[in-house]
């Protein structure tokens, strides 16, 4: 955890230092078809026990490197003017509660970014894919280590430069095994996150 915190703090400082020189200039990101985005996002998983059968309070830090490709130019002429990108994300979660365990997943994702506000760009995203965790089997909600993770959320990108953005947002996280083993109550959580993206 201290290593993760150091990496994130260093990348945040580096981004802010490199962005300082262009703060005075007008930032106007030009994202078109074919613009790619690589990002690094981190957050903290907070549990939701949605039914009385859910007892586990799983929580811990999560880190999510991602890649995306913009596939449309901005469409629409109103507040909803925006563009679509698709890509994939790796997710690593270190469950610190109730047991120190780990989870790793790979999730294709799709994102709609609202571009009407220029350098401030809210977005909505959806992702889902396979997820492996050794937490399963140790808790009553999940019995198999092979699971799926589904996330849906929203966030906002603030462009520090034409190519670099700071992101914050919220995701709802659901982990379950799609009925391949029982019990399969599923784990639900909130994941507030922050991170950086680089566009090229």
């Amino acid at each position, binding site marked *: 955890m201290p290593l993760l915190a150091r990496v994130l703090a260093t990348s945040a400082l580096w981004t802010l230092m490199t962005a300082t020189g262009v703060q005075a200039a007008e930032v106007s990101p030009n994202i*078109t*078809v*074919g*613009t790619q985005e690589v990002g690094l996002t981190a957050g903290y998983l907070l549990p939701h026990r949605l039914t009385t059968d859910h007892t586990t309070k799983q929580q811990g830090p999560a880190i999510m490197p991602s890649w995306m*490709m*913009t*596939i*449309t*130019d901005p*469409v629409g002429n109103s507040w909803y003017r925006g*563009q*679509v*990108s*698709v*890509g*994939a994300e790796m997710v690593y979660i270190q469950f610190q509660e109730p047991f120190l365990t780990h989870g790793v997943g*790979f999730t*294709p*994702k*799709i994102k*709609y970014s609202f571009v009407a506000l220029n350098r401030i760009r809210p977005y909505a995203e959806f992702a*889902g*894919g396979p997820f492996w965790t050794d937490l399963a089997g140790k808790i009553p909600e999940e019995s198999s280590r092979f699971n799926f993770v589904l996330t849906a959320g929203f966030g906002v990108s603030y462009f520090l430069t034409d190519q670099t953005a700071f992101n914050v947002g919220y995701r709802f996280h659901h982990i379950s095994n799609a009925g391949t083993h029982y019990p399969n109550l599923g784990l639900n959580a909130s994941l507030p996150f922050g991170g950086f993206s680089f566009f090229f």
Partner: protein
Amino acid sequence: MMGQTFSRPLIGGALIMALSLGTGCSSHWIDLAEQKGAPTPLQTTVPSDLRVPLLIETIHTTQNGVALATPIAIEHQILGAFEATKLFSQHFQSGYAQPATNQPHVTIRLTMNNSVEPHAGNAAWSGFIIGASMFILAPIVTLDYDYGTQMALEVERWDGQTKQYQASSSGTAHYHLFAASQHLIDELKGQVTDTCLTQLLDQVIRDTPFYIAGEIAPSETTIRSVSVGTKRSNTPVHPVSTSLEPATR
């Protein structure tokens, strides 16, 4: 034995998938709409001392009905297309050097109405399908981007007489997810604009006598003369299929 029976299809499948991902994912091609009844290119000869200067007065550009500043690259492309006809002796652009006031010259005003259709809904749906298939369908599912342009050219002679010309062209870029790039879109726009300009200038060339000083008909026997005609694009336009090199993305 059983292992060999299964391993061959598996290895073959893996090879096909690797080849598909390596080549199919990054391919793109451009289809330009066929022009029905397009006239054959005209080549004629004009005495060089009868050519007059050309002044490009305005280039108005709209995209999906919204007025835009004309990109410098497009201005250069238009100027270059007129220069390549060799119909005019000099080429001026409004805002820069001008022909002398007492010098007979031809003034042109060009309007370009561009239309862009990125098929956002289809792209979003295709992106979802590609993602849901864990990118296995990326070499199969294609994304489309349409671009079209309509040009209207008004040409005014030194004595106030005018002529109007119109041309249009359109095309579609088809690409796979990993071939999406701004270069591809620029390539489509360049080819569509080039085709449209060629059609427009073919019409202008057919009116060559209208643009030469004294309205002397062009002669094949004049000693000091230049060949007049539109520059044909070197790039194949129907249809082009290429693979994007990583360096071009």
